[in-house]
């Protein structure tokens, strides 16, 4: 949808590598992304800004820092809650969901992949 089409003057070495197109799902709607790019980038390119609701007020939240610092882009990936969409690589068949209602806070490390 909104991928940059670089002008010829843009340095070749700076162009993003063109991965293969894959299909993934967000809240049961299908989208296309580039394999390996962060889920948050693929959703942004597809025009999706609202990635979930904050537990505090229920207000919409989305990508903010894009480098894993802020935890505003938490989504559920498969059965794993609180995955940061900015760090989660898109792959064929990935299924992600907005987290609503919010899951109870759990202890322990949530970073380990399944």
């Amino acid at each position, binding site marked *: 949808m*909104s*991928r*940059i*089409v*670089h*002008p010829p*003057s*843009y*340095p070749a*070495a*700076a*162009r*993003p590598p063109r991965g293969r197109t894959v299909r993934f799902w967000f809240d049961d709607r299908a989208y296309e992304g*580039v394999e*390996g*790019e*962060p889920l948050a*980038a693929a959703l*942004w*390119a597809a025009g999706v*800004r*609202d*990635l979930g609701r*904050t537990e505090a007020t229920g*207000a*919409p*939240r*989305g*990508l*903010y*820092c*894009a*480098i*894993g*610092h802020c935890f*505003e882009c938490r989504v559920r990936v498969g059965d794993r809650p609180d995955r940061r969409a*900015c*760090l989660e*690589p898109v792959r064929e068949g990935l299924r992600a969901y907005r987290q609503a209602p919010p899951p109870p806070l759990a202890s322990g*490390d949530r*970073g*380990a*992949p399944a």
Partner: protein
Amino acid sequence: MSAGGEGVLDLAVVGAGPAGLAAAAAAGERGLVTAVFDESPVAGGRLLGQLHPVPGGWWVGRAEAARLVAAVEDRPTVSLRLGAGVYAAAREEGGFRLHASVSPTPVRARSLLVATGATELPVPLPGWNLPGVITAGAAQTLANVWGVEVGRRSFVVGLSPLAFAVALELSAAGVPPAAIAPPAPGPALAHLGPPAAQWREALRLARLGPVWARPGAALLASPALRRALLPRLPRSGLPLLGSRLRLNVAVEAVVGRESAEGVRLRRLDGDGRPVGPAWHEAADAVLLAGGLRPVPDLLRALGARMATVEELGGEVPVVDPDGATTVPGLYAAGNALGVEGAAVAMAQGRRAALAVAARLGRADGRAQAEARAAVERARADAPFAFHAGVAEGHRRIAALWQEGGGGDGRAV
């Protein structure tokens, strides 16, 4: 961890950005058993999203990152552990224990290099937490790293160096932001200084700007001329990098229901005070450019003596000329030492790795002296300073180190 005895690393590096990768490459060159951790699945850190024109072409961070990754992968004693966030660390007999998100057992290392970089200062305007409002760095990641268009009509809020870097990069990609404007002053934005202070910061960069920027900056440096001129400038601003630099307009709020749809603006008078009625303009993406500060968490948690140095962007460790902290075996490199460009960060990474190698008898004084000189050279060659007086900031840290570590830092 093939060598080194009982799976203990010679060096653990946290952060696979320019500093961490350069350190790992240098450590590998000296045969140190090294692992680099980064919670991103992609190596390179902020390098990946940086590019700027240099005489005869472009400096492309992505190419620098690829070169460093290749150098690291070339070394049999170095492993790159991506998607592995270090969420806890502690000192223990003879070194450090790290807990990373992908390994069930802790990682042990004799030396630890913290290369965790910088984070962005918030610009907490009303509406800043709406979806569609992102940091300037996030825009670099979307557009420069992944080729995703940030917005059809994006609005940069803030006059930090990062604001102009992003505008330049988006412009080069053919998708310039619609406007660059300061945030309106407010109690939550005191850390950014009033608009007049932000103007001064922006004008510091004028020598890198278009032909009108230098004389324009000279005129605006005088408060009297500023009061006379700024109200006469069109509120649509001046053309800059395919965008519009709007110095006499401030963003009061981001507005929208489910995501950002626009910004609320006010005129600024010649002293930077909002005047007159507010109006709205459409914006489908808002990029907050508050500036950068070093990430101190891991250093602080491990008990390194810290100091707050304005010229370096915030809280930094008190370090020796190699980046060694007050905790034996704990080093820092890159923006964790102060906000500067990637070339300085790479040189600081190499310098720290050679200091670790020297402790193990794998580097001599000459190599170390060269590595230290390379940091100074990179600083002198930098196209601009993120903070005015960065060299003075480093001198203050050196003085604190010589006094036996101190600053306003916490006790070890």
